[in-house]
């Protein structure tokens, strides 16, 4: 079952078209990476899913229920972590979670237990200072805790790792990976390594349209130029190979003993390389066809 279905979303702010035609289908229990440049419309799409912005056209369904602008009924299925989560600075983490829990209709022992569990999971247990004194990373962690409070079916995170240091980033990604069994996660980002690390599916949003969508592996296979890699035992062999194969250095990524080239027809090229190696009696220690990195897919897609 699809937990989220959005069809034909359009949105214009004044004369600026933000979304031209966005459709997305998110199946249950996956981590869905929502990619796009800054200003591509990721936050706008997410706010529409939450009923905080009205689409000019199109419809959104969460758990088969239609999202109505201004109404927030479907939000009972959703946990949301804004890009820069801001909390009431005069409350501490526990007080804030209690407040959020009561808003979600929770109370008593069930709420207390859940708060304890989430504070421990996010490493905020025992932190007594008020949220106004929290670091960016602590705010993100509290943001995730409040988003997970009502055991949401869908967790929406808006660029959760963008402004964090490597330690903070790892903590957030670990938490997201840990909750995937219980909930579906959509997270928008432009940090592609994060997506490669934890996502099952990706969608790339560019100029108001989703230009690529699918499983991460499948996207890598079907989009973006594949590459060839050859590695030699000695540098001299590499130099000789480059010369005989007539490869231009500026089109390749060359390290000390290794060459990588991205080609539209890598099968044909690898056969040629093998012929050259046989003729010249140069034996590589590694020769392989490589999948394009997500970065390559992304860069090619948005050009």
């Amino acid at each position, binding site marked *: 079952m699809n937990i989220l279905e959005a069809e034909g979303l359009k949105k214009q702010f004044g004369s600026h078209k933000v979304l031209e035609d966005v459709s997305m289908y998110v199946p249950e229990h996956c981590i869905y990476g929502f990619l796009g440049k800054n200003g591509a419309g990721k936050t706008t799409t997410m*706010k529409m899913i*939450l009923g*905080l*912005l009205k689409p000019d056209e199109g419809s959104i369904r969460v758990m088969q229920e239609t999202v109505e602008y*201004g109404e*927030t*009924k479907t*939000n*009972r299925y*959703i*946990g*949301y*972590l*804004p890009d*820069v*989560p*801001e*909390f*009431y600075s*005069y*409350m501490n983490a526990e*007080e804030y979670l209690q*407040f*959020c829990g*009561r*808003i*979600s*209709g929770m*109370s008593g022992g069930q709420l207390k237990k859940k708060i304890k569990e989430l504070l421990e999971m996010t490493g905020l247990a025992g932190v007594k200072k008020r949220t106004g004194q929290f670091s960016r990373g602590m705010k993100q962690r509290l*943001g995730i805790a*409040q*988003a997970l*409070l*009502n055991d949401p079916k869908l967790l929406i995170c808006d660029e959760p790792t963008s402004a964090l240091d490597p330690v903070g980033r790892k903590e957030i990604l670990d938490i997201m990976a840990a909750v995937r069994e219980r909930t579906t996660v959509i997270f928008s980002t432009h940090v592609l390594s994060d997506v490669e690390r934890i996502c099952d599916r990706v969608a790339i949003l560019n100029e108001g349209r989703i230009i690529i969508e699918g499983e991460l592996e499948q996207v890598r296979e079907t989009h973006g130029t594949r590459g060839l890699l050859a590695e030699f035992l000695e540098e001299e062999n590499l130099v000789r190979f480059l010369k005989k194969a007539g490869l231009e250095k500026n089109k390749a990524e060359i390290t000390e003993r290794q060459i990588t080239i991205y080609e539209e027809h890598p099968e044909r090229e690898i056969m040629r390389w093998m012929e050259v190696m046989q003729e010249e009696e140069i034996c590589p220690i590694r020769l392989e066809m490589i999948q394009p990195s997500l970065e390559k897919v992304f860069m090619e897609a948005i050009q």
Partner: protein
Amino acid sequence: MKGYTAFVKKEWIESIRTYRFLILGMVFLLLACLSPISARYMPEIIHAFMPSGMEMKLADPVAADAWLQFFKNFSQIGFFVTVILYSTVMSNEYTRGTLIPVLAKGLPRKYVILAKFTCACLSVTALYLICAGICAAYTWFFWGEAVYIEGVFAALLGMWLFSVLLLSMVMLGSVLFHSSYGCLLFTGGAVVIQMIAGMIPKATKFLPVGLITDSTEILNGHIQTGTIAWQMGITVLAALLLLVASVLVFDRKKL
């Protein structure tokens, strides 16, 4: 309903921890204490500052003067401070984005407005009642038994109703405009327009602002009961309409 009570509680914690309630309370208490004291000692104070040799005949202060001072101080300084303190009630939430996670939890938007209004009304009402009690106590202390003045309850009720109306204006101003300045201009403008309209004699009867500008006449019983009833009725109706309008506007507000 749980969401509403949770939000009222949050508003209460906010007004305590951000010192809003404390500042309002101190200003109100100061005004409540100063009103009877200044009324009682005004002739002495004026006398002390008069140039020597100059004489000015002043009537002896009476209990009604204490209440006159009370109404004057509250309608001017008291309400001014109230409006300023509550003008940030929504703008802080907009600029910091603190409402987004809360609304994303499924809290109906109307509860935000209603809870903020409830908390503001309860705070102002509680402080106002305490202050009226303090003024009454001082008046009794200074003038003995002459506490009861015919129109005092009508005037107190009228001023309280106007304070509720002011808070509902602040709510609508806060949802219409993103900044607190917009809210202040809206509320100030609404009061000034009423004052200008009050120059037309026939309109006075229907203007809520009469409840504070004419408090002297109400206190002395110089205003017809019918006029006060009209003003009070319209004030209640206007406050309700403003509150409904705030809820409707906020429902459609882009956040």
